[in-house]
């Protein structure tokens, strides 16, 4: 599904390149559940953003579902991730002005899904996540765990084949974190590929493969 070949990314500080990613090679097959670990500043989030096409890279090749990402235009790239990728963030990143229902609905709007269909899909997922009763609340009225639940629901609504999660449990207590992890495992069993960045050994263990990053390189894989 994902092929990263010799991906490098750097910023120039004081005339010298400062590598955020260096010669990263990574192959991800469909259906995998990968955890990316490493200390702060090791390039975890950058790697995730590159895979999610939210960020660019300076060198190397990136194939996503056999599309050569580094060669296609911004617009096609946007089409690509809109179609196949769902994002989950540490800080949830829900739109404060929208209710739970509307937040979940937003990706569908951008995919031009018809209203009746949207309604059914959102109702479905609300049901599945057991948050029907909260659908008219605003994000600020929810607890962190509930917000992240909405965040995951929003990521799933467009039926993505890949979920990229950047420390999804970072702001949650352990019980809430466990719930999210169980949810991910369940989704993975249904065939969704998941790549998560995490600090926690425990959560990393949910994954089928763990990748350790250090100073922008892949240090080891488990």
């Amino acid at each position, binding site marked *: 599904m994902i092929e990263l070949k010799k991906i490098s990314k750097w910023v120039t500080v004081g005339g010298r390149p400062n590598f955020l990613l260096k010669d990263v090679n990574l192959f991800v097959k469909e259906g995998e559940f990968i955890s990316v670990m490493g200390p702060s500043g090791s390039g975890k989030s950058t790697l995730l*953003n590159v895979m*999610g096409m*939210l*960020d660019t890279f300076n060198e190397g090749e990136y194939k996503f579902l056999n599309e050569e990402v580094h060669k296609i235009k911004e*617009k096609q790239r*946007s089409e690509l*991730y*809109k179609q196949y990728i769902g*994002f989950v*963030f540490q*800080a949830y*990143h*829900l*739109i*404060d*002005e*929208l209710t739970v229902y*509307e937040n979940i*609905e*937003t*990706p569908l*709007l*951008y*995919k031009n899904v018809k209203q009746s269909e949207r309604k059914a899909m959102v109702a479905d997922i609300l049901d599945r996540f057991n948050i029907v009763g909260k659908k008219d609340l605003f994000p600020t009225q929810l607890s962190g765990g509930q917000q992240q639940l909405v965040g995951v629901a*929003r990521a799933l609504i*467009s039926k993505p084949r890949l979920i990229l999660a950047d420390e999804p449990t970072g702001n949650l207590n352990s019980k809430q974190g466990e719930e999210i992890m169980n949810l991910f495992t369940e989704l993975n069993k249904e065939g969704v590929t998941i790549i998560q960045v995490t600090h926690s050994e425990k959560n990393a263990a949910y994954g089928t493969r763990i990748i350790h990053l250090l100073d922008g390189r892949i240090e080891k894989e488990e």
Partner: protein
Amino acid sequence: MLKNYLLVAVRNFLKRRIFSLINILGLSIGISAALIIYLIVQFEFSYENFRKDKDSVYRIVTQMNNPQAKQTFPIGGVEGPLPAALRNEATGMEAITHFITLFRSIGGDKITIPGNPLPTVLKRGKADITQIIYADEYYFRLFPHVWLAGSEQHALKEPNQAILTDERARLYFGHLRLEDIIGRQIVYEISRDTIVCTVTGIVKTLKGKATDFRFEEFISLKTLTEAQLANHSVADDWSIISNASQAFVKLKPGVKPLQIENQLTAIRAKHQEDKSNQGKDKDFAKHYLQPLNDIHFNQEYGPLLYGGRQAHKPTLYGLLLTAVLLLILGSINFINLTTAQSAQRAKEIGIRKTFGSGKRKLVFQFLTETFLLTLFATVLSIILSPLFFKIFRDFIPAEISFSFLGRYHVWLFLALLILCITFFSGLYPAWVLTRYKPVVSLKNQLYSGSSQTRGSWLRKTLTVFQFVVAQFILIATLAVSKQLYYSLNKDLGYNTQAIVSFFVPFDFDFSSPTSRRFVLAEKLKAIPSIDKISLAGDVPAGEFTLTQDLNFNTGKKNELLTTQIINTDPEYYKIFNLKLKSGRYPFPDNILKESLINEAFAKAVGFKNPEEALGKFIQWGNAKLLIVGVLADFHTKSTHESIKPIVALTSKSLNSHIHFSLKPQTNAPGLWKATLEKVEREFKQVYPDKDFEYRFFDETIASFYKKEQAARKLLAWSSGLCIIISCLGLLGLVIYITNVRTKEIAVRKILGASASQLTTLLSRELIVLVLLAFAIASPLAWIAVNKWLQNFSYRTDISWWLFGVCGVGMLLVAMTVLGVRTIKSAIANPVNALRSE
């Protein structure tokens, strides 16, 4: 999708209530002004637009050239026989019409309907004589009307026929059926003639239409010419060119105005030939065609009917500029506040981008938001519009009613305006907001660097621009006010206070002591609260002026001098306090024996010393007038104009006004009112059928400056509105700055900064902008004001304090606005700020 956008927009407005309110208020001020100004400008430019053939109709006008004086004198009329000659001798025209307009005559005018008990006195406002014309039978062919009774076919063909509009028909005949009015008689007593006319038709009035053709009564032109009535020479004498005699032509398709002008020149040349054959002087008139839609604006040729209202194009452009400026200022507020807050919106944008929103969709979303905001502002401005109607009262023609909302083009204009504002003020913020990279915005890195970004540079420029505009207009307002004050309070050379003048009707036995004027003057002398009384010509700065070319022998040579004649009596000098430069005032009882000149006269004929003029004579008609004194110069016109040579003499035939000065009423309030009532009673006893219309002299003087008064009012209002909008913007910016710097303020406070230090810190940046704006606005205003002052022969200087007042005033206002917010955040408890961070 749209619903989602609108929802977010509304919730955003509610979340940032103050900013939304500032935006809406600022925009709605601009929109209200734009709406009213649109109504005015649209109305003025739509004059005669309802006529289908408006582009082929022209008025014939005249330029009198005097090769000796190197002057041209424009007249909005023609010599009476010209239209008929044109009809017989020229080609290329579909129709030619000729009509004579009327003006109020000195004797007063009256209309009687046989059978009606009371005559209708012709007066401004009710049945105005200027709405009656003598028109030829081609009038209705060129200017079609809707016929309610009778027909166009035989209209105005014979003498003593009259056509009325339904308005006038109702006024004269009440609720008689229109068909029954045909054949009824009307007796006109106008211009010392009595004319009996038969009504042969009734047309629909053009009242309410945008037209200068406000005529309500049409008397056949033959009535005037065949009966040789008092004014007939205007209509049939080749040597008289008056703007009372109007000719219109309608060109055939494809004919150019120049072709007709050439034929007019030829006709004129032929008649000049005849004239010189008869031994008369040639004159130098040349005719031109004036387009129909120029009549409403061309001040040179004047209005169509006596006293008609014309529009002043520069004023209209000034109004348009005002509207555009106010709109721009409101939009700047929007741009500033939206880009200032963009960091707060950045997260939402990042999320939307991550979930697949393209740039175009985001731009569309923000434009939708701007659109909604503008829509709210428009609704508010419609609610506010009655207020703006009041502000622009002096500029709004009476025909524009408040029911403008019923017109489709007003809505079209508003829709267009909303779209323009949306794009103008929405596009840049939308671009700023959507260019953020989602990764950056989601990481919340925007806040820290926001004060150094390009957006802030642009914001500062825009804020400076706002204040430049506001201060420029403020300085202009102050300067115009100063000049007005100067003009009204300048020593004009005479007394203006507590003097009342009124017109006394003409008597044929004007020189006899039993003439009604003298009787009235004697009676008024008995009123104790009247100080002095004079029977003479008009006031020193009146509308009735007599200007003549006088031959004057200085003793060395003959001088031809254009001189204004003023008619006085001995009391006149005392009432108006005209001062002597040398010599003496005339003795009483010196009818046409003694005279005074003014300094300008003495200077014009080359006397170095006013005394030199004493003892010389002025030839005035058959009278030889001894110069007994020289008057100090005084203004007979507004301060726009320089002082002309004047001869003051005493002639009974030129008497037209009674002037009296009132004793002070400081100890007895209401004294003047009682006195005026007494005077009116006496007047009515002498002239039972005339109206008593008096005027205070200082009001007459003030009316010279109507245009300036109106300009000052407009400037004052627009500067006020500009300041309000700009201060709203300033308030928005300072709220934003204090919000962003909450943490910094808290840290500084913990480190020991005082509240006043913090206030200074927060305000300094914006105060610098206001000062910078002042530095830019001052020289610009200086140039503009200087140029405007050149219009006045007698003008005030531009003083430095004008700029001082403006600068300091603006600074104080800005500091107050800033203080409201900065002080609040400076004295806030820092712990709260840090905890929430």
